[in-house]
């Protein structure tokens, strides 16, 4: 059974359709990627799921029941893209305060904070103020306050921005751990390589509409262009046949595109017969990045952004 199901959700502002008829469902214990350029409607969508906004139309089913903000937000941990903490407040007190607002009794909140601080080696920070922390440290703290109350649904908006590789890895590991223990994670980003690595399932939104939905592997299969990378043993000419055409060549590396009906074995046979010394032959699936650029091309808002942030 799915933990969260969103049906025909709509939210219109005076000037634009921020979320225009989006539906999807998320299985328990999975990591779900919500992708889209800035201004695509991701934040509005997340704010409806976290109970900050009411949808204009549509319904949200959470944990088998219609979403009820006051009760259900206690089971959700939300880390917005724009991070924020009280700058003048002591870090330990702050974590305890936020946990209390999520419904934990004070004693339990303190215990949990201690546990997590230990885990992330942050014990010495307790009495410090947020303004004394670096951006990355603040990020770690923010993550801790998001997952502290063991929410069923964890929503992370760009969780790795501003983190060094060591800490990014630490948090990535933690996300996997949380999912393994049964938490469901919504992961919103426009960093494609992370999505491919982490997410089980993704949807892509652009201009308020869902334009892609599915498992990462399935999507890559769906959008494949029959590209193969061919490596020869030493420089050797390769000639295109009726089975494939050559797209590019760089020394011993060739990228060839097979005809849709062509069979890989047939192509290999042709190559061997032509005397090409083959060292490698591998299918090149499109990256999510490529797929997205292709899908949002033409919608000028999006495409440029993707290209510039995913080099």
């Amino acid at each position, binding site marked *: 059974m799915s933990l969260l199901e969103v049906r025909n959700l709509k939210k219109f502002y005076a000037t634009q359709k921020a979320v225009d008829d989006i539906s999807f469902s998320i299985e328990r214990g999975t990591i779900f990627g919500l992708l889209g350029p800035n201004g695509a409607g991701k934040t509005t969508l997340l704010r409806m799921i976290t109970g*900050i*906004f009411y949808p204009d139309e549509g319904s949200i089913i959470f944990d088998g029941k219609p979403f009820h903000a006051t009760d259900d*937000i206690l089971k*959700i941990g939300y880390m917005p893209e*724009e991070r*924020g903490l009280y700058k003048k407040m002591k870090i330990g007190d702050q974590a305890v*305060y936020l946990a209390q607002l*999520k419904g934990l009794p004070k004693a339990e909140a303190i215990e949990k904070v201690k546990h997590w601080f230990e885990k992330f080696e942050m014990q010495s920070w307790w009495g410090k103020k947020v303004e004394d922390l670096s951006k990355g440290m603040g990020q770690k703290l923010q993550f801790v*306050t998001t997952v502290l109350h063991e929410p069923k649904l964890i929503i992370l908006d760009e969780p790795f921005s501003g983190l060094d590789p060591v800490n990014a890895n630490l948090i990535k590991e933690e996300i996997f751990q949380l999912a393994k223990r049964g938490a469901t994670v919504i992961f919103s980003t426009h960093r494609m390589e992370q999505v491919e690595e982490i997410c089980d399932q993704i949807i892509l939104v652009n201009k308020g509409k869902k334009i892609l939905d599915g498992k990462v592997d399935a999507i890559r299969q769906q959008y494949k262009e029959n590209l193969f990378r061919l490596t020869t043993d030493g420089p050797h000419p390769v000639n295109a046949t009726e089975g494939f055409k050559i797209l590019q060549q760089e020394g011993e590396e060739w990228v060839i595109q097979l005809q849709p009906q062509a069979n890989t074995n047939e192509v290999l046979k042709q190559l061997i017969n032509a005397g090409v010394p083959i060292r490698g032959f591998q299918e090149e699936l499109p990256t999510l990045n490529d797929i997205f650029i292709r899908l949002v091309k033409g919608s000028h808002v999006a495409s440029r952004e993707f290209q510039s942030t995913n080099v």
Partner: protein
Amino acid sequence: MNKILIIIQREFLSRVQKKTFLLSTILLPVLIFGFYAMIIYFSVKSDDKLHVAVAGNSGQLKEYLKDDSNLKFSFLPSADVAVLQKEVNEKKYTGYIIVPDGFKGNKGDSLVYSSNSSVGLMTQDKIEDKLNAALDKVRLQHLLAPGVTVQQVDSSKAGIDLKVSKEGGKTGNTGFAYGLGFISGILIYMILFIYGAMVMRGVMEEKTSRIAEVMVSSVKPFQLMMGKILGIGAVGLVQFLIWGVLMMALQLLLPVIFPQLLDTAASQVGGMQAMGGNSKQLEMVRSIMNNLNEVNIGMILVLFIFYFMGGYLLYSSLFAAVGSAVNEDPQDAQQLMLPITMPIIFSFVIMTQAINKPDGGLALFGSLFPLSSPIVMMARLPYGVPGWQIALSLALLVLGFLGTTWLAARIYRTAILMYGKKPTWKEMWKWAARGE
């Protein structure tokens, strides 16, 4: 409900635990006390030489009214005001007292001291005490005969009241009602600004540090706003309480530091001295109470707390709404605050009118209209206000703050998550009206 309490607790503690809170709460009364002490010190030590003409039926007073280093009495048989005023103008005397014919100095009688310069409380008391002491002796002289009872001796004690007149103007003990009204009005005025601005800054901090979005994913925006307003309100109440206690404690210390004060107080009623030797203060309070029989200080204090809270709740939610609409730029705050600060300033202007004409139409309107009633009503109270007006004013105030809170909450809810350009009043009005 529980969440509001947690928020109130944080807002309260995070402010009370600050060093600046301790400093301002303790330092301010000490500073005021310091000024106060300095003024008294100089007025006690003052080398002002007074030369008082006692005119008219001075009679036996002449024998008993003794000069001292700073105070000299001259006795004139003529009671011609014009002549006396002329001589005061020529600086022959500092001031004059005319004793009417047949003046006995019974309790409740009064004499008028006329002068060109204003007379300090200390000087006034000093002259009054000397006059009373002299009158005592005059009256005792009459009783020095066999068969006089203790009661008669007791009743011979003079208790005249010295009134002060400047340049023949109106006489009166003090402008106490005026002073009390003015001070309470100004206090409320300051409270609205200081604590209102504190609420606004708190909301702006939440918005600019982007914690607002984290918070509203845990609590309702209304809870967040009310928690802040109530928490800061509690800070204000505690601060006033501490100030009140500190001021009282420091005033008790006053006579210890300035024993001279006790000289003038020595002739006061014994029972009062039992109360910590602070009879000077009590004497003042007593005369205040005598002058304002119809006004109950206790009631004014209670109403002060009511108007403090009502006015604070009414305006602070508006300040919160403005804070939520502001982005980083403090200049935006200035502009958006204007429609809120205007009614406060207008209330202040109405208050200055109301003090001079407490029963006028403007004063009545100002003390009923919820946006101005906290300031204007406080100024009217010492003059005595009919009960129905107070009740109506309080009821309107409660309706007023329910209304502004409702309105502000709807603006706040939308504005707290809006970034980018500063919203116009029209947009904010739309948010309030639509209230999605």
